[in-house]
């Protein structure tokens, strides 16, 4: 009897396995990505992988896809999203290695060098050359997605960081809010005047910046000081030079003078958003979040591209639309990409996700919709530079974070911290 029961159990298990695999059959509505596209009726299935898990963006992209597929009933778009960093890398590595790459990827700038050089991203030069709208996209959107002379994508969002500052705090400290700091010296001077302490504890930072997990601050200030950080042509790091050391030494003064509130680089931990900072580099997305939160000081925010030295430079995280070389429906994929860059869609993303208006024709509309931040933001875009486009971008990012953290916590002086990070990076690259 027991034997019979076990046999029946086995049979049931086998049947279940059979039914499971049947779920993935060719007629399954959600099966697969690139491979099951194109049939005799001309139907096309595109897969679109977006890096990022924001619910607002998911809703917005889903609506855009629904609208597009309604207008193009022969096209089906399978949308999926995934977190940045390891999750994205693991998923893309697996999908590309197995030949199941998504047709379209909205990914960060840090992926371009590695994936373009491995032939995973397709060059879009020919498509762009014939595109009517090509001249209506801001130049930065092209620049950040250009690698070794080829255009591998177009940025759909540029998270340009700009200096946010509080009018009320400036006035309280006797500073003119219409004259934001223009030089490093002014920035430090303003920060000292704006810092509020209780005993030795800084309760309001004059100028806030994350001291942990932060590569952006050092990168942009080193660039402001004339450092190149990376020689992309020679494919080598150069960040242990005098210019970068000077930039890092500048920041250690903030620690020495007890001007900082230590915090980790997470968007939900920034002191400015919590009302505990007078100045901080932030992005348009934070502006939208602060406005939406309904805090009573939202109208006190003012904006500037920030100070400069040899030049003004701000750091920008870029989200770029790429097409996979493996895609079997490149024309259809390009058609959907073009749709993403129509004025209506770009504006929808601006309004609903805090994205950048990457079309030149939308500048006036942007300024009208965001009269307080618009002009400063569009000006900032001109100074925005992203991560260096090298295959070892993630190692570079780690090196910057480590050096910055070690110097800020006083573990090493600026030169030693940068030298050590430089040697570590080269050692990991095997050079």
């Amino acid at each position, binding site marked *: 009897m027991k034997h019979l029961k076990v046999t029946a159990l086995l049979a049931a298990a086998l049947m279940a396995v059979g039914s499971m695999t049947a779920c*993935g059959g060719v007629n399954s509505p959600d099966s697969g990505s690139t491979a*099951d596209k194109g049939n005799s009726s001309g139907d096309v299935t595109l897969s679109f992988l977006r890096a990022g898990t924001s619910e607002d963006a998911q809703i917005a992209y889903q609506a855009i896809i629904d609208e597009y597929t309604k207008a193009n009933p022969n096209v089906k778009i399978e949308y999926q999203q995934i*977190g940045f960093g390891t999750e994205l890398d*693991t998923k893309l590595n697996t999908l590309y290695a*197995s030949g199941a790459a998504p047709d379209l990827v909205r990914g960060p700038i840090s992926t371009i060098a590695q994936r373009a050089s491995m032939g995973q991203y397709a060059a879009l030069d020919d498509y762009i050359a014939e595109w009517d709208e090509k001249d209506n996209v801001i130049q930065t959107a092209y620049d950040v997605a250009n690698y070794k002379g080829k255009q591998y994508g177009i940025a759909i969002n540029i998270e340009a960081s700009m200096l946010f500052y509080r009018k009320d705090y400036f006035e309280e400290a006797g500073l003119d809010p219409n004259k934001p700091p223009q030089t490093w010296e002014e920035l430090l001077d303003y920060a000292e005047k704006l810092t509020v302490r209780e005993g030795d504890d800084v309760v309001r930072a004059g100028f806030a910046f994350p001291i942990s997990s932060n590569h952006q601050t050092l990168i942009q200030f080193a660039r402001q000081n004339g450092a190149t950080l990376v020689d992309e042509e020679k494919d080598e790091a150069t960040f242990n030079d005098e210019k970068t050391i000077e930039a890092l030494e500048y920041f250690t003064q903030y620690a020495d003078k007890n001007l900082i509130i230590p915090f980790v680089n997470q968007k939900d931990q920034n002191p400015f958003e*919590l009302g505990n900072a007078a100045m901080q580099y932030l992005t348009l997305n934070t502006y939208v979040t602060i406005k939406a939160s309904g805090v009573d000081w939202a109208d006190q925010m003012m904006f500037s591209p920030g100070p400069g030295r040899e030049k003004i430079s701000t750091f920008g995280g870029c989200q770029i639309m790429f097409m996979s070389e493996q895609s079997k429906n490149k024309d259809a994929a390009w058609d959907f990409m073009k749709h993403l860059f129509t004025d209506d869609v770009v504006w929808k993303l601006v309004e609903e996700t805090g994205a950048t208006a990457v079309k030149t024709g939308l500048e006036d509309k942007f300024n009208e919709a965001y009269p307080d931040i618009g002009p400063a933001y569009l000006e900032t875009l001109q100074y925005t530079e992203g991560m260096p486009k090298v295959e070892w971008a993630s190692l570079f990012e780690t090196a910057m974070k480590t050096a910055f953290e070690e110097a800020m916590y006083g573990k090493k002086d600026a030169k030693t911290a940068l030298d050590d990070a430089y040697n570590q990076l080269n050692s990991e690259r095997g050079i």
Partner: protein
Amino acid sequence: MRSKRKLKNVLVIILLTILCIIFLIPLFLMILTSLKSMPEIMASKFVLFPEKALFSNYIEAMQRGNWLGYFGNSFFVTALTVLISLILNSMAGYGFARIPFRGRNTLFFFALTGMMVPTQVTMIPVFINLKSFPLVGGNDLFGNGGTGMINTYAGLILPYIAGAFGVFLCRQFYMNFPASLDDAAKIDGCSRLTAYFRIYLPLSKPILATLAVLKASQTWNDYMWPLIMINNDEKMTIQVAVISKFVTEVNTQWNLLMAATAMIILPLLILFLFTQKYFVEGIVTTGMKG
């Protein structure tokens, strides 16, 4: 002598209590965080207890996405994985332990090497195998043309149903039985298969319970494999859902994340509570302790 033993017992109890508290701290922090508001969590000064316990965080967390579906997917995948793996592992373990055949030890050694290869190394090859599985997901006989088992439940289950560790555990368990048991079964006219089903399987409760708990927690808690295998919300498992719903590029909703995490550990906790007697017995009898 007796007082010495008493002192030793007291010391052991104190040590175990301390260890117990250390292990429970993260759990308590999780529960407390799940009841806090975001401003409380993000406040510059750490506060252990919430000013007001927000049980509504649990409701809000479960309203983000189709949690019934995510739980259903994880239950289905875990249950089938455990069921099939118990059958396969115990049969393989029985074979290695009780059936003498040429090359048995060599074969077992090769099976064990599977325990030494990290998952990260096998991830892409396994993915390619499943993508190229013949006659599934639009594939032809040679595994071309379709998507194989990508985005299917089978793709989540198959890689976990067998495993060197389970085979090893069962073999160790079946090795403990005396040879006379096989002789007695043989005299009574039992074939190997009958002996397995009628004698060994009924005696295997401790090891099967142990394996069930280990397999269930491995499958239930798995994040990376479902992340790369599943492409849509419909087949998403809870571990992927908990990250994708509460951790975004803009912020992390710690209170909701912790509330959802507290909910998703419950099934495993219940499973362990029901099987802990057998679990401990299984660990002891297979010599896996310490």
